[in-house]
């Protein structure tokens, strides 16, 4: 058991705690959000919640702590998510709300019966009733309630249907303090009993598959699945790259550079007298100039569009299908296809990607995916920076940088797969239905992610820029530049001031690129700078997550390796490109 959980657990008072449990992807996180009013991210694939979230609220004068436990199929503690669930149960709670998927009763009841082995009152929320209806499934609620010996309430969590009733029953249950019958069954007995109950309470009527169901099946066939995947990928690139550029140059840059920044500069220079302090605020590297232009005009458009696309793909249920298609190839990197989800998330931000690997059961998979995301997958902020730096100068260099990233992922993945001991787990995955995401949930999710970016990015970015301004204005840049001269100028072929990139890159990944924007660089220098930035140390927040998830040693090794990698290959690119250009 990991230490971090033990510390958090002490804060949970078990008497008025309600555990929200169930199989993966049954809508627990949606129920949690609706009941507590807290925003947690849900998605249409298994394993969104990998650690528990607690929400406190008062309901009918009753103080309640609702705990969103990671989704599990069983309670055998074979993955970190299951370990958390079993731990929460052992600790005890006032009641359990067990969420059942009405479209998949049999498997859900298996967990329901396992929960009955713990001495706690249970209330069942039979969720996804709308989907079940569409699929022609009807369930005898009273019969099910009798068979389970506890209240069963029909719910459609996304539309807030039945949730109040679930909460009423749960509160009633933990106040009643009735004697609970513990039922311990062997695995065989349990499945037998579950089968009998399903036969009794459930009727399935065959419905002709709709177009979206057929499309869902097609996306998993090599043909037309692979052409569909290529079209989806092209659309994603088109929206993020093309849309981002349009948004940046037509909307945000004019507003910020011609509107907001001049007003601020004017205002500040009236109040504050000439001098170093004024330069720190509104000079070339001024916090109030670059600190607004970089994150809002140059990075934000790409971040926004990427999160719109990612959230849509997540909620549609398309990503696990892509996982099926790429499993054969991804496996050569030691990663079963299911890992495509955290992998793609890595193109947004490495932090949720690394946390997302908790759903996979093997340590080897986690480490490989984490290494690849830390080393060679640019996050969306960095992508924005690359587009700003390279998009207008040379599309060729832009493509070159992404080719390098791709090659590095393949080579390092194959090498790590060979080097690291252990096996990666076989792919066994439920494929959710393909569906049109609900607008409300989608909008909320994009907003949470955007807010997160603004809060997470803006503060370190301002600090970074302030640091840069200080280093430039005090002339300290010359000291650093001279110290790093053999490396930066000699090996990488960059100007002395570029050493600022290496310093700021530690704080945030895109800050390794942004300072290069305002230096008058040759095309080779831009290329070298981009390659260095691509591989360079993952930012501070990633480092912190690495320490938390893998201990300090692994975090230090990973960071050290990425720095060495960045400087080595940046230099190689410089030497080769210079050599070639001298030939002509």
């Amino acid at each position: 058991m990991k230490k971090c959980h033990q510390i958090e657990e002490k804060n949970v008072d078990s008497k008025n705690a309600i555990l929200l449990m169930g199989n993966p992807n049954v809508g627990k996180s949606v129920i949690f959000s609706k009941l507590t009013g807290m925003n947690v991210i849900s998605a249409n694939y298994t394993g969104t919640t990998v650690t528990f979230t607690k929400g406190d609220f008062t309901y009918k004068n009753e103080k309640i702590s609702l705990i969103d436990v990671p989704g599990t199929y069983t309670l055998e503690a074979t993955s970190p998510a299951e370990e958390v669930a079993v731990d929460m149960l052992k600790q005890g709670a006032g009641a359990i709300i067990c969420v059942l998927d009405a479209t998949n009763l049999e498997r859900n009841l298996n967990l329901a019966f396992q929960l009955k082995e713990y001495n706690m009152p249970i209330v069942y929320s039979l969720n996804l009733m709308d989907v079940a209806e569409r699929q022609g499934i009807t369930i005898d609620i009273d019969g099910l309630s009798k068979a389970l010996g506890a209240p069963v309430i029909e719910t459609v969590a996304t539309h807030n249907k039945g949730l109040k009733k679930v909460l009423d029953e749960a509160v009633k249950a933990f106040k009643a303090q009735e004697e609970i019958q513990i039922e311990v069954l062997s695995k065989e007995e349990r499945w037998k009993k579950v089968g009998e109950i399903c036969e009794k309470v459930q009727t399935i009527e065959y419905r002709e598959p709709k177009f979206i169901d057929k499309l869902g099946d097609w996306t998993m066939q090599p043909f037309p699945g692979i052409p569909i995947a290529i079209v989806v990928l092209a659309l994603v690139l088109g929206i993020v790259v093309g849309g981002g550029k349009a948004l940046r140059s037509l909307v945000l840059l004019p507003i910020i550079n011609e509107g907001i920044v001049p007003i601020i500069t004017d205002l500040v220079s009236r109040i504050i007298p000439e001098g170093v302090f004024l330069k720190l605020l509104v000079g070339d590297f001024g916090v109030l100039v670059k600190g607004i232009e970089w994150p809002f005009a140059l990075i934000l458009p790409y971040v926004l569009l990427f999160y719109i696309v990612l959230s849509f793909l997540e909620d549609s249920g398309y990503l696990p299908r892509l996982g099926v298609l790429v499993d054969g190839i991804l496996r050569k990197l030691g990663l079963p296809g299911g890992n495509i989800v955290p992998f793609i998330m890595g193109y947004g931000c490495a932090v949720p990607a690394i946390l997302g690997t908790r759903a996979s059961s093997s340590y080897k998979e986690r480490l490989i995916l984490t290494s690849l995301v830390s080393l060679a997958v640019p996050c969306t902020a960095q992508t924005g920076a690359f587009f700003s730096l390279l998009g207008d100068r040379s599309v060729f260099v832009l493509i070159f940088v992404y080719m390098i990233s791709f090659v590095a992922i393949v080579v390092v993945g194959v090498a790590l797969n060979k080097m690291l001991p252990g096996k990666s787990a076989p792919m066994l995955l439920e494929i959710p239905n393909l569906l049109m995401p609900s607008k409300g949930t989608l909008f909320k999710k994009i907003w949470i992610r955007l807010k997160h970016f603004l809060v997470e990015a803006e503060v370190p970015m301002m600090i970074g820029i302030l640091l840069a301004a200080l280093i430039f204005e005090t002339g300290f840049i010359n000291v650093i530049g001279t110290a790093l001269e053999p490396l930066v100028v000699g090996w990488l072929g960059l100007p002395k001031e570029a050493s600022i990139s290496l310093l700021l890159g530690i704080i945030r990944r895109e800050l390794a690129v942004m300072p290069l924007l305002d230096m008058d660089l040759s095309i080779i220098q831009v290329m070298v700078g981009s390659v260095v930035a691509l591989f360079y140390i993952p930012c501070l927040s990633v480092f912190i997550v690495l320490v938390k998830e893998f201990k300090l040693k692994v975090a230090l090794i990973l960071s050290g390796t990425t720095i060495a990698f960045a400087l080595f290959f940046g230099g190689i690119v410089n030497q080769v490109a210079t050599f070639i250009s001298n030939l002509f």
Partner: protein
Amino acid sequence: MSLYKFNKKENCIIDELPTNDLLLALGLRKGVTVSVLTRQPFGGPIVVKMNNRSIAIDKNVAEQIMARLVS
């Protein structure tokens, strides 16, 4: 015959399967009827249909699942 070798769309009943709790949890047990929906190149998984559900099964695991054709 192993589940991996069945033709697409053929209904078959599972006779034997390796001990794996996740398989059980996903609803794959002795006696259930499934049909292969898709197959992938490069040793990728197969996807089987069970009632209304689709489940991706690793090639190695699918090869260990024994099933017989439903006539």
